[in-house]
């Protein structure tokens, strides 16, 4: 990959530099009138607007973030709670895999948006409908990632465990599960991002709170500032969740931390 690795400080300096150039250029283009602020407000205005929306008497932005995050987490936890155990079983049993494979293949390509009409008919537009959208949009991916992670557990480790006298159940608990865990977790990290796109879509179509709702109503008023505040909030929230998830990974996989890269 050419060259030496960058140190932590260098990485930070380069990252901040890139960001400054990007934002500075943007700011300048708007200030100089090259870009009409009506179509794209300057970053300084977006930040000011964000501060106002977060700080104001009703702190509407924080409420939106909380609502969206809650919907994402409920739907995500639900699909992980069902998808991970089922995916493990699929990874371990050819029969179950053959039985469920076609169903998964049918559900998986469906975008979360396509579930909106049915879910609204069935559940209205209350919270359960949002959970359902996130669930339907992420469940099949959880299954596929978990099945794949289970299939990729080193077969020699299973043979070694059986050779040492482990029963089938002990092999599943002590070898298959921890062996599949790293790939399950990286799969879930991808699914968490998918869950966010699901909830934003769901909120744009039928909701009265949440970041997707906020962006969509702003569009009705041609309030590009608020649209950008909403988009920026999505990025920041996902960033925070990603950091939390990494922390969880380090906690659950101490052996990968000790040995550096895996």
């Amino acid at each position: 990959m050419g060259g030496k690795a960058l140190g932590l400080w260098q990485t930070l300096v380069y990252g901040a530099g890139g960001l400054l150039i990007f934002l500075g250029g943007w700011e300048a283009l708007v200030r100089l009138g090259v870009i009409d602020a009506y179509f794209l407000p300057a970053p300084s205005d977006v930040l000011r607007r964000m501060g106002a929306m977060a700080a104001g008497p009703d702190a509407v932005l924080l409420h939106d973030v909380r609502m969206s995050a809650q919907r994402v987490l409920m739907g995500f936890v639900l699909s992980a709670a069902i998808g991970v155990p089922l995916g493990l079983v699929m990874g371990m049993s050819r029969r179950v895999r053959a039985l469920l494979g076609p169903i998964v293949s049918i559900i998986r390509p469906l975008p979360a948006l396509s579930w909106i009409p049915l879910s609204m008919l069935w559940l209205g537009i209350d919270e359960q409908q949002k959970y359902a959208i996130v669930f339907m949009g992420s469940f099949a991916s959880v299954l596929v990632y978990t099945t794949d992670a289970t299939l990729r557990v080193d077969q020699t480790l299973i043979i070694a465990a059986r050779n040492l006298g482990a029963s089938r159940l002990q092999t599943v608990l002590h070898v298959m599960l921890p062996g599949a865990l790293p790939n399950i977790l990286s799969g879930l990290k991808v699914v968490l991002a998918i869950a966010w796109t699901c909830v934003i879509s769901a909120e744009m179509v039928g909701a009265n709170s949440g970041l997707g709702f906020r962006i969509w109503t702003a569009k009705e008023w041609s309030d590009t500032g608020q649209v950008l505040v909403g988009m920026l909030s999505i990025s920041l929230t996902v960033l925070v969740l990603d950091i939390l998830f990494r922390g969880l990974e380090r906690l659950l996989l101490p052996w990968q931390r000790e040995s550096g890269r895996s």
Partner: protein
Amino acid sequence: MTQAVIQAREVGMRFHTREGELAALEDFSLDVHKGEVVCLVGASGCGKSTFLNIVAGFLAPTAGQVLLEGQPISGVEPRCGMIFQNYALFPWMTVLDNVAFGPRVNGASKPERTERARHWIRVVGLKGFEQAYPGELSGGMQQRVALSRALANEPEVLLCDEPFAALDAMTRQILQQELLRVVAESRKTVLFITHSIDEALILSNRLVVMSARPGRVKAVYENDLPQPRTLDVQLTDRFLELKREVWDLVQEEVVGSMTALQRP
């Protein structure tokens, strides 16, 4: 003579593959006695690993049978501890937990299995590395862990499937001596697969040359080289003479199987 620990009686193994039936072993008979180190040498694909997997109980032979201490092997056999070329350590467990795994799944209490694991870790010279993860250790150290993990389970037989093939030459020599020392101390029986004739001559009491597929016993050598087989022994006429003899046999098989493949 006492009863052999492993008795293979006219063992045959056929696999069904896409290309049709494949005979991996045919009429393979071999006795391994207590305390012996028997090395199986042969060209790749001669069924060495297949035989090891039969002894470990992972494969059931399609003909003949293998007896362990007089009893037919039925199912996975923890009395035969395996050592793999790629170590097969559990990367998420510390060295201590890896070595304690066998006693743990066999129901030993925590203090008991910890004590046993510590003992065998010390025997293979890894005292102080109990809390390390396998990923932090060199290949040679990982194979020491694998050896102590197998021994902590107190097997009758050690089944070694080219365990040193992935190591550098220096480490391999050291581990060969370590293996012999540990095996002698613990009075274990060893069935060792290798494609290195040097390694087989250094380790074995008896050296079995296998034919190309289907694998049979082509020749058996009682290895009378003096112990320990230091570099001096490896430079003696007797060593070189044996090496040439074995090499000629193995080469015959390799060439034979290659011309067989070329036939339309």
